[in-house]
């Protein structure tokens, strides 16, 4: 991780960091260099798995010091999703809610993650607290986080097969599993 060196001082917070490099030719407004939309009054940044880590790094530098929530979402079969034009819709999304506790503002990142190679770079170097949340996303959606310190199952049993929150994981498909206890 090269991002975490010498960046302990948060820069002066400027909410319109991406404003300068705004290109009038681009279809949608941008913030921090990525397309930005508004959802029910909340700021949402869109990115893909390659730009995800740099974007989080930029947000950390801008004062978003708390990772409030990280979760996956599976859009298999959902045609109603509205995304900015430049963003290629993929099956999975990683949704990160960040909080700037000093300026009292929130921001949300939706990173598109494709099904064939669902691997992102872990954001635990920025936010140690994202560890459990990323482990949950690994369990539930089969996403992978490169550089995660402990990518073991957290909520599911160690020998569980499949990722329950994927849309193609039918309810009741697998009978309830109990771990056998040796010697009993």
């Amino acid at each position, binding site marked *: 991780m090269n991002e*975490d*060196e010498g*960046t*302990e001082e948060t820069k002066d917070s400027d909410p319109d960091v991406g404003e300068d490099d705004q290109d009038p030719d681009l279809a949608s407004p941008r913030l921090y260099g990525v397309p930005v939309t508004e*959802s*029910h009054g*909340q700021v*949402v940044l869109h990115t893909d798995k390659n730009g995800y880590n740099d974007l989080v790094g930029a947000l950390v530098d801008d004062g978003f*010091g*708390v*990772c*409030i*929530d990280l*979760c996956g*979402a*599976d*859009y298999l079969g*959902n*045609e*109603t*999703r*509205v995304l900015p034009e430049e963003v290629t819709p993929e099956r999975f999304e990683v*949704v990160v*809610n960040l909080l700037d*506790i000093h300026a*009292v503002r*929130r921001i*949300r990142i*939706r990173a598109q993650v494709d099904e064939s190679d669902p691997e992102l770079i872990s954001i*635990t*170097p*920025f*936010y*140690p*607290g*994202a*560890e*459990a*949340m990323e482990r*949950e996303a690994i369990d*539930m959606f089969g996403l992978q986080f490169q550089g995660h*310190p*402990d990518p*073991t*199952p*957290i*909520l*599911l*049993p160690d020998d569980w097969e499949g990722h*329950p*929150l994927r849309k193609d*994981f039918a*309810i009741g498909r697998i009978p309830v599993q109990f771990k056998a206890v040796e010697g009993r």
Partner: protein
Amino acid sequence: MTQLDHLRNGDAVLRMSEAEAEERAAVVDPDDERMIINMGPQHPSTHGVLRVTMELQGEVVLRSKPVIGYLHTGMEKTAEDLTFMQGPTNVTRMDYASPLFTELAFSLAVEALLDVEIPERATWIRMMMCELNRMSSHLLFLATNGMDLGAVGMMIYGWREREEVLRFFEKVTGLRMNHNYIRPGGVAADLPDGWSEDVESILSILPERLEQFDVLMTGQPIWRERTQGIGVITTEEALALGATGPILRSTGYAWDLRRSMPYLAYDDVDFDIVVGTYGDTFDRYAIRLNEIRESMRIVEQCIEKMPDGPYRAEDRKVTPPPRARIDESMEALIHHFKIFTEGFKVPAGEVYTSVESPRGELGCYLVSDGGPKPQRMHIRAPSFVNLQTLPHMIHGGLLADAIAVISSIDPIMGEVDR
């Protein structure tokens, strides 16, 4: 980030699989006095089914790791199979000590997607019920915290006071727990006749009882000895680990969503945010005790200012018709039937709403695809995130203190595992 590196590397967190631990146990090394033990999942002080793997040297805890998932029932998956109408019955079972908060976060998310205005009375009823719930939740904490540290009498007192609140909940919602009271569009029922007398009687009993708790615990030397300076965490560590609620406030950082990002009508009531100084177990205890007093202040103002009017939105898309209408109108009957069988459709979109639960920020991330059921429902459970602070707080402390620290995090396993 360098000053926070210790949160990420293996200084305090025991990152070792069971197989590795077994392998290490088999190697006999007379100079190595470390051993790995399991605490829980069945242990009275683990608040349900929390298991903590600990590396001990003598009585000192070196590294540890909370092992969770024993209560995982896939409630987020279940939510995708329930309509928005049925949603609160599911989420209310997550944090069973403060069920109304999860219902509230979920309902606020659905209402944001629907863009429905909530009548003022519903907002104030919600706020009053939530503050009463905060009191009952903190009273439960005082009871279990006392018991964990050997003040067994406290167990009975805390439970007794909590029962007063639960009795009122039963009268209003029909159930002592898992109320399904706060629903998208308002609340399930109006407050019953004479509600204000009931609430006032709770408020009149409590101050004296809280003073008794002060005598029993706060000022008592043994209690202070067991809690002061134990399980210390700094503001930076708490923020980096995502900890919110009393854990963050115990470090002296006054962060409370009710004040910082007000929802419901918290703008219109006076209350103080209780903060600690040292970030230790005693501060976390004292914060919760005093938050009961602040909640009582809010409830008093709710009684005073409770507005009249409907207790749920008059939007017939979301709320069923009044019971009396069903007897006289065929359309109302059909409408009632439709809402309870098919549910109502929620416009496509996604939203994140958060409330300040007794444990910290409780959030709900909701994605709708335009149908009557959520496409994705995720609850940001404060206990789940807060539990990550445990290895750092008990690192280098005594095993007996670990009990005090686990208790001071106040984890609700139903919410951790979901």
